[in-house]
């Protein structure tokens, strides 16, 4: 998530609120955090104030309101964004951007698997998490186009997830909600039914499948029986008429089998509404295991191409995420999608000259190994 920093005053708590740029008091003010250049007068009612100028200590004592001053780049904050302030360190974490299509809620920091290419740092869940997340959702704009529910593994929350989804239904009835989950806990049909009963209009379960056989898939998830459990979960979703998207992260262990994975999906999971092939995000465990996982995009692009065409020929909705256009055969460019959040993506020096830069999603982070050497402007 986007992060800003400043100097905190007047509080040591954690504060969550919606950004407002309007200093006048309104009904909303008590939930809002004012973002402004400088503080001129007393500001009543706001949860906290952020400003870009420095403030003398003496002045703040009069202001009696949590303040973070000397914030660089405060223009990056938009009206309606939601931020989480750490008043001990002065960190401003933007947990929701009103103008973005890539918003997500980190529902759980823990997981029931230890996938060898997981980019997420894991930690035990705190009780505060759920409470905070529900509060954040409550402040989101009703017209938010899409919201991801991510982790870790969101389903670990059990009933907590149901509470979270209820809040989504209330606050964001038209938003497309995407739950990123390994689906293992969905093998309990009762749990699936309890989610289905909520009748969210636009709920999609995004579930990874890394191989066409249980041996490989279980190894990548580092959990025996994962394949079996995930398939049961997928079938439970289908029986309960839930929308399913299948995601395949491409790595050395599965790159040659991509066409066969596509075949498996078409024949066994024909109810999936979308299939996405994804480039690996080299963070966390992925970075740690990179030697075992790395395969160059140039090397796997023929397999990716075959897999994508296999599904397209059969009229399955298929996309490619997190891949750079210069490494893909031109005839599959149509399937790519700028999937990396705008604040997150980077481009290399070579990219500046590239004619397709506006169309290309760029990178998560500096490319590994020979990946960089293969990048070239088009």
């Amino acid at each position, binding site marked *: 998530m986007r992060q800003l920093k400043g100097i905190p005053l007047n509080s040591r708590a954690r504060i969550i609120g919606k950004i407002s740029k309007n200093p006048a008091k309104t009904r909303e003010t008590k939930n809002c955090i004012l973002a402004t250049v400088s503080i001129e007068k007393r500001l009543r009612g706001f949860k906290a104030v952020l400003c870009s100028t420095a403030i003398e200590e003496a002045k703040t004592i009069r202001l009696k309101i949590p303040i973070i001053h000397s914030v660089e780049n405060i223009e990056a904050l938009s009206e309606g964004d939601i931020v989480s302030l750490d008043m001990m360190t002065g960190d401003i974490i933007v947990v929701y951007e009103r103008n973005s299509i890539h918003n997500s809620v980190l529902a759980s920091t823990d997981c029931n698997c230890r996938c060898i290419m997981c980019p997420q740092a894991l930690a035990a869940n705190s009780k505060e998490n759920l409470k905070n997340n529900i509060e954040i959702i409550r402040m989101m704009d009703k017209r938010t186009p899409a919201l991801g529910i991510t982790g870790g593994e969101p389903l670990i929350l059990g009933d907590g997830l149901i509470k979270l989804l209820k809040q989504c239904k209330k606050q964001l009835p038209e938003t497309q909600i995407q739950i990123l989950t390994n689906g293992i806990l969905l*093998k309990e*049909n009762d749990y699936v039914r309890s989610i289905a009963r909520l009748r969210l209009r636009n709920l999609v379960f995004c579930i990874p499948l890394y191989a066409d056989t249980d041996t490989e898939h279980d190894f990548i998830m580092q959990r025996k029986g994962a394949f*079996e459990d995930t398939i*049961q979960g997928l079938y439970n979703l289908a029986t309960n008429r839930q929308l399913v998207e299948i995601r395949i992260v491409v790595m050395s262990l599965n790159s040659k089998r991509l066409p066969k994975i596509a075949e498996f999906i078409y024949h066994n999971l024909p109810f999936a509404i979308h299939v996405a092939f994804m480039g690996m995000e080299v963070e966390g465990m992925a970075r740690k295991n990179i030697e075992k996982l790395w395969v160059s995009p140039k090397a796997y692009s023929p397999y990716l191409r075959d897999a994508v065409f296999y599904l397209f020929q059969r009229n399955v909705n298929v996309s490619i995420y997190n891949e750079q256009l210069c490494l893909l055969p031109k005839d599959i460019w149509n399937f790519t999608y700028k999937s990396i959040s705008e604040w997150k993506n980077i481009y290399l020096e070579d990219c500046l000259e590239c004619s397709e830069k506006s169309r290309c999603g760029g990178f998560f982070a500096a490319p590994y190994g020979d990946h960089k050497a293969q990048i070239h402007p088009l």
Partner: protein
Amino acid sequence: MIEGNKIVIKIDLAIYARIAALKTCYVFQDKCHTSLEPESESIFKVTLTPKKGSLSLPEIEKEFMDELIDQQIRVENDKLFSNIRKMIVEQAFKPISFAELKTKIRK
């Protein structure tokens, strides 16, 4: 073995199942008139008289032997597969949960 306008084949029932021999004869009923008789306890004698417009006698003999081998494979497969087939069809129309299915298969 070709005898005039007929083909005579002796099927050793130590190698081929009776049902494989019968099925093979059935397959050839559009091309030939077939007759079957036991020559001994373990030998079936099959006589094929090709109907007009068929292939040549040596070709029919060769095809019959090929088909016999395939039918024998199918007979052996049947023994191997019949339980699983029943289980698949039963699960298809009277589904039980995955966990219950696993227990059932173990038995």
